[in-house]
Structures are given as C-alpha cells and as structure tokens.
C-alpha cells in the first residue's frame, strides 16, 4: 500500500502529463505483478464491488472523529469527496502499512459478506493506523471510482513505456471483462493468448466535433454522411456461438438486451458490429428517455420488453469471418456490413442498418443535417470513404456535426457546491423559467458546465453574498442573473415540476445584458417540444 499511496501522492503533486506518465511507468517497472494488475484495474474503474455502504461509513467516520453526523455531512459538502473528508476528519496518524495493495483489496473482497460489526472494526483499525495519504487511498478504494486525473489513455502510455508493448494492442488487451483478483500481469499484459480474446471488444473509434465549416473538409465526394443516433453506442460480438454486447463505457451489457440473442443463430461466428442501441417502441425510434427505462433496470421483465423493445442500428463492421478488418477502408467495411444485413434482415430480427447518404454538394449535407430532429437523430456523422477504423478519439477522417442545440434564457435560482476540482465552489446550478403570469420562477433544469473557471469564481462569490436560504447543501439565491441554457432534446415529463424534461442541459453563456424579467417562460419552453 505504501508504494501505491506514494504513487497517488506523486500523481497528485504534479499537473504535468509527462511527469505523471513517468511516475506511473516507474511504478509499473517496480511494483509487484499483483499490485500492478490492481492498479490497472483501479485506474480503469474496475474496482471490486463496494464492501461497505457509504451511509454506514459516514456514520462511523463521524463517530470515530467524535463529531455530530450533521457536521460530517456539512464538511463532506464542502470538501466534495467522501474519502477525502473521512481522511481529514479522523485524528491524524503517522503510521504506515506494510501490507500490499493486493492484500488490502483481497481483504475488501472478503469483507463484503461480513457483519456490520466486523466491517466497523475493520475500518476503525485501518483509519486509525494509516497516515493521511494511505488512509485517503484506502477509503477511496472502498467508496468508489478512483478519479485522480489519470485517464485510461495516460495509463496506457505509461504501460507502453514500462513494457514496450504497442499502445493500441495494450488498449485492446485491457478492454473487456477481466477479473483483477484472478488475472496475472503476465496473462493480462505480457502474454499473447488468442482464446482470451473471445469476448473482447475493439476500442471504439470516436470523433471530434467539426471545428470549421464542412466545406473545409474538401471534396464532398470523398465523404459520406450518416445520422448520429441518440442511444447507446455499442459493439455486438458473435464468436464461437456466443453473444457479447459492450457499451462504449466498456461495460458488458449482454444481459440487458435479451432481444439480441436472436443474432447468435443468424449472424456467423467471428463477427463484430459497431452500432447504436436504440429504443423502438411502436415500431419506430423512440426518445432517449424511453431507453432510460431499460438502462437502469436489473430485471428485464417481459412487460418492459414489450413496452420498450430495442434495436441495433449498425454503423460499421470491425470483424468479419474471424478477421480483424479495421484496417480496410470504410467503403469496403460498409459493403460487407450491407451484405451481412441483406443476408439476415427480417422483421423478426432487431437489426437495422444506419443508412449512408452521399451528396453532390456540401449544401445538400447541411440540408440533411437540418432534418435531424425530425428523424430523431442528434445530427450527422461525416466519414471519409477510405478511412480505417482507428482507436480512440482521433481527428481527420471522422467528424461529428451535431445540430445546434435548443436554447432558452433562464434565471439562476439555486446553487450547490461542486465535487472534485470544483470542491468548495458553487458550480452546480438550478435554473427557473417564468410561469404564465410571470410571477413565479419554475425550476426546469440543472446545469453544471459551460462557464469558464473565471466565470464560475465570479458566480460563486456572488452566490455567497446573495444567499436567501440554505437547505442543507443547497442555497436559494436572489433571482438576478440570466443564463442562456442549451440542451439537446426536450420531451414532456410527469416527473418534473415543470412538466418538461430536457436532455443534457448546460450553460451556453451568461446573459449580462438581460434582466430577469426578460428571461423566457415555461410556455416558450413547451413550444419547443416536437409535436
């Protein structure tokens, strides 16, 4: 643990990527194999299930720190990170543990089924005998995701430096469903074993938003457009008579979409399709809200399957007849995909193909983009006909060209402190629109992003001076500032007070030029709902 905590401390002590990579690769060269596997797992968000529920941890932490629970909670809202709060409020210790990271994680796995009393004792023992950084890391391992400014990409770069294995190959090896408790470093990283690859997806190729006018991309004939569907980007794998469905977040979600089991018998072994999972109620594409009813559920009931079935809208073919065809030109891959689709398509099978659209002029492309909301897409994807399927987010061959967001001017009404690098800073805002009589502001959305750091600091300072009431961590503020809020989609909703749900709301800009009387009304917002 000492070594891992030291690594985290070093990563925490610099803002420079090169120094982070250096620290990590040094760690990968010197740590024990077992600890290395855990470190990879933790930094790629594969920690074991949480052994202790966080409510209990809060209670015990406040008991051990001899402070009332409300004070612990207030501190947590200000610190913005549970593990950090716990590490700070427990009386300090300068001791250090000789136990390895592996030992700690094995203990945590064994802790999960134990009684509350045993868990409490385990936490007490460790909290009081670890120094600040070890205590923070220990608690962080228990509480949740380990976000410390190290992306998976940065970690892969460090592994490349330590092992000299190609970055793309590493990215591929680290994907999928491996268990850090039973996997060895040799198996995971060093050794080449084809049978392990049965369920492994390929790293997704992601696009950046287009920066200039599309004309700047050159000859329109070298490009092809397709709609960018608003569902869950996924890879569907059929190998050895088995089906695997991966989401872009590298989560294996096969069980959540039983309708895809039909693929097993129809699609030949050795096929990997890149596509979008879309809700398809009443035989037409639904909204993202429909899909949300499927995402959260553990039990997929028959009723749910009937109400909100899903389809796979196929974009691309990555593996065909067991061969990795990502190097082939997009045009070639599409031909194979379209042939596959023709061979298997029927009303019975939930496979659709995302049509590609060729154009003569960029103006025509722009016109097609304008139709996006109508066809329920988020905009267009522009792909070069001769592009290979790359790894990760890359510029050049693929671009996304989303529709302009919908916008509305709303009034800041409530604020809450943020988390992580925004801890102790009011950055999470609630916005209201006027009711019909323009007497009351009705909450319609929350937004956390879109302002610059400098703007956030200004709003933060203003909020602290203009608080009306406090409700735990939330403050109501004097209605005074108007912000332009952008969002991707809008639908009626009975769950929201305003009667409207917006998708991905964020702040577009601070309207210093507008008074609150000039903010929009709820009626204005409702007028944006597609009929």
């Amino acid at each position, binding site marked *: 643990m000492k070594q891992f905590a030291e690594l985290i401390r070093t990563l*925490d*002590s*610099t*803002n*420079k990527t090169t120094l982070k990579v250096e620290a990590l690769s040094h760690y990968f060269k010197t740590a024990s194999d077992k600890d290395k596997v855990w470190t990879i797992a933790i930094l790629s968000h594969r920690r074991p299930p949480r052994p202790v529920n966080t409510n209990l941890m809060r209670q015990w932490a406040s008991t051990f*720190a001899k*402070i*009332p629970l*409300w*004070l*612990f909670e*207030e*501190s947590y809202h*200000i*610190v*913005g*990170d549970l593990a*950090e*709060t716990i590490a*700070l*409020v427990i009386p*300090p210790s300068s001791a250090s543990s000789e136990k390895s990271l592996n030992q700690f994680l094995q203990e945590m796995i064994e802790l999960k089924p134990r009684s509350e009393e045993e868990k409490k004792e385990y936490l007490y023992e460790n909290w009081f005998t670890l120094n600040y950084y070890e205590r923070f890391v220990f608690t962080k391992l228990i509480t949740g995701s380990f976000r410390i*400014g190290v992306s998976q990409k940065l970690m892969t770069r460090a592994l490349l430096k330590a092992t000299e294995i190609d970055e793309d190959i590493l990215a591929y090896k680290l994907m999928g469903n491996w268990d850090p408790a039973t996997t060895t470093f040799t198996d995971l990283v060093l050794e080449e074993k084809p049978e392990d690859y049965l369920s492994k997806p390929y790293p997704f190729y992601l696009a950046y938003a287009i920066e200039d006018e599309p004309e700047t991309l050159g000859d329109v004939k070298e490009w092809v457009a397709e709609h960018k569907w608003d569902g869950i980007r996924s890879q569907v794998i059929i190998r050895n008579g088995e089906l695997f469905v991966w989401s872009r977040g590298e989560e294996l979600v096969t069980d959540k979409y039983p309708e895809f089991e039909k693929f097993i018998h129809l699609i030949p072994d050795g096929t990997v399709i890149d596509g979008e999972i879309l809700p398809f109620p009443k035989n037409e594409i639904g909204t993202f809200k429909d899909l949300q009813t499927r995402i959260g559920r553990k039990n997929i009931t028959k009723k749910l399957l009937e109400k909100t079935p899903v389809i796979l809208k196929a974009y691309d073919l990555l593996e065909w007849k067991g061969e990795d065809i990502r190097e082939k030109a997009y045009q070639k891959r599409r031909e194979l995909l379209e042939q596959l689709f023709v061979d298997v398509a029927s009303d019975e099978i939930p496979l659709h193909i995302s049509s590609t659209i060729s154009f003569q002029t960029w103006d025509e492309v722009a016109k097609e983009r304008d139709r996006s909301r109508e066809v329920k897409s988020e905009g267009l994807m522009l792909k070069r006909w001769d592009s290979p399927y790359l790894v990760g987010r890359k510029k050049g061959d693929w671009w996304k060209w989303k529709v302009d967001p919908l916008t509305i001017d709303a009034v800041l009404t409530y604020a809450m402190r943020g*988390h*992580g*690098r*925004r*801890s*102790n*800073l009011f950055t999470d805002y609630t916005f209201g629109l006027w009711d019909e009589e323009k007497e009351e502001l009705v909450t319609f959305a929350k937004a956390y992003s879109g302002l610059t*750091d400098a703007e956030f*600091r200004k709003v*933060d*300072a203003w909020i*602290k*001076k203009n608080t009306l009431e*406090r409700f735990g961590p939330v403050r109501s503020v004097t209605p005074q500032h108007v912000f332009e809020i952008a969002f991707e989609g809008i639908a009626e909703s009975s769950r929201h007070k305003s009667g409207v749900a917006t998708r991905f709301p964020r702040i577009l800009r601070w309207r210093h030029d507008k008074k609150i009387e000039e903010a929009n009304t709820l009626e204005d917002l409702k007028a944006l709902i597609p009929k």
Partner: protein
Amino acid sequence: MKTPLLVFNQKGIYCEVADVYLDPWKPVKKAIISHGHADHSRWGHQQYITHHTNVPIIKHRLGDISVTGKAWNETFTINGVKFSLHPAGHIIGSSQIRVEYKGEVWVFTGDYKTEDDGLAVPYEVIKCHTFITECTFGLPAFKWVPQEQVFHDINTWWQQNQDDGRTSVLFGYSLGKAQRLLKHLDTSVGKIYTHGAIENMTEVIREIADLPPTEKITRDTKKEDLKGNIVIAPPSAHGSPWIKKMVPYVTASASGWMTFRGARRRRAIDKGFVLSDHCDWQGLLNSIKATGAEKIICTHGYTDIFSRFLAEQGYDARTEQTQYEEESSEENSKEKQES
C-alpha cells in the same frame, strides 16, 4: 434593553459609548485596526489606532494617514471605555482588540492563529465575556501540522526541484505569508528571488523583523540565474506572462486551502503545502474555551456551521455579517490579503 457594548452596523463593529469602530469597512472618524490586511484596514478613516509594529505596514499600504501606535497591553480610555491591544499571532503586527466597560469585557480577534510562527508575536489568551471570533477554517477537516514539518517539506521540495534542474515558484500573499516563508526557507539550498509586490512589502517588514536576503526579479534578471533557486510570488502571478521567465519551473502554493485536493487541482498548481495564518478547527475550539467567554460571535468563514456546533456545545453562539472576506478560498484578480 441595554445596547450591547459592540454592535455590528453598516460601517463595521461599533462601540457607541466610545464612538469608535473596530476594523470598519466604510470610512469613519476613529478606527481601531487589528492588522494590515486589506479587508481589515481600509482606506478613508480620519484616525487610525493600531499596534505600533503595524504602523509602517498600513502606512505603506494606505499612504499618508493619521495613525497612532500602541504597545501590547497598553490601556487607552475613550469616553470611559478601556481599550487595549493583545497579540493575535496572525501576521506581524496583528492584534486582538480588548474592550472593557463597567466590568464587561469583549474581545475581537481580527484574524488569529495559535501556533507561534517565529515572526509574529504569538497569540495570547485574553479572558472575556463575549468573544468575537473569525472562523475562516471552522470545519473539522482543517488540522494543521506543526510548521517545522511543513517547512521541512517545502525545503525538501525546493532541493528536489533544484536536483531536477527546475526553478521553484512558491505562491503566498505578499503581507504575512510571504515573510513567514522567507523566515523559514533553508538558504543553504539556494537563493531567494521575489516578485516586486512581495519585495516592496518585505522591505517594510525588514524594519521590524530579521529576514534573509532576497533579490527582486527585474527586467535584467537572467533566466540562468533563477534556475534551481526559489521565487516567492503572490497568487495573482500564477498564469501571468511574468512567470514565463522561470521556465522550467514547478509551482506550489502555501495556504490552509491546500487541505483540499480540489482547491489545488482547479488552480493547476503542482504542489500544495498546508500552511495557514488562521486557526484550525481545534485551535478555534481551544481558544474559545480558554477565553472563558459564554457569548461567542462568529464573523467571517464557515460561520453558520461553526456557530451551530458551538451552540450544541452549550455556548451562546451566533453569527454576524461583516465585510471581511468570506470563505475566501478563491483569489481575485486584485490580490486579496488573506490566506
């Protein structure tokens, strides 16, 4: 009902009987000033009274003002009200202000810390009935480690950067924190350079305290000269073109706010040293207990949370609005004199 000895009005903390303000934020006739930071010693009062070590500091900041210097424990009576100044340990020249009238004693802390920083005269406990306390760091998450350890870490960091061929840039406010850093840097590691704002204030403090030699960075300072040495700069210098001269450099900040990982990360500072000129949680609680006061008034900081906790401990605790910078973990473009 009897008017309290001190009230909080639009202009500041007011003693009606003596017609005197303590650390007022609007221009007044007569002001008793706790210390030299901008939010406590403002411009525009007709008469200033403060500890004599603070006189050159506020004169440097406010120019030609009418100011009277007092010694520690020296009682001065205004219209029957007895005033005296007592060390607050916050920065050099900082005082608590004791106010006594007809046997009733109030103490206003200004800003204070309980640790002896080796520069300011250490904080003294003053018994009182009503204690007006700041609580900038009034949360149990704040726990300072002894400064010997922090300075050991700072000097080790400097040495490491020097070994790596980098310049160390350490941020701290120009009045107080900067001189505390200077006082305890290990000059055997290398030379200390300063930003102009820090050099000017340090020059004033040199009249009162013994500090190691520093060199102001000017247009003529050569990049090669800086390499491996340390530069003390105000936080506002971070991200300014001025800092480019130090390349390759590593940045650090010394402040109580560095307790929070998030506070350091969003400023894009490499290293945070937790070093504050205010009390930590336990320091506040110990001081309050030691004063024997029953009534506690919390001014700036986490006032609501802190006074609620005090009330649960049996104190008659409340908060008052002041214009001392509240929850000042964010620095403004103009340098704010608080850390």
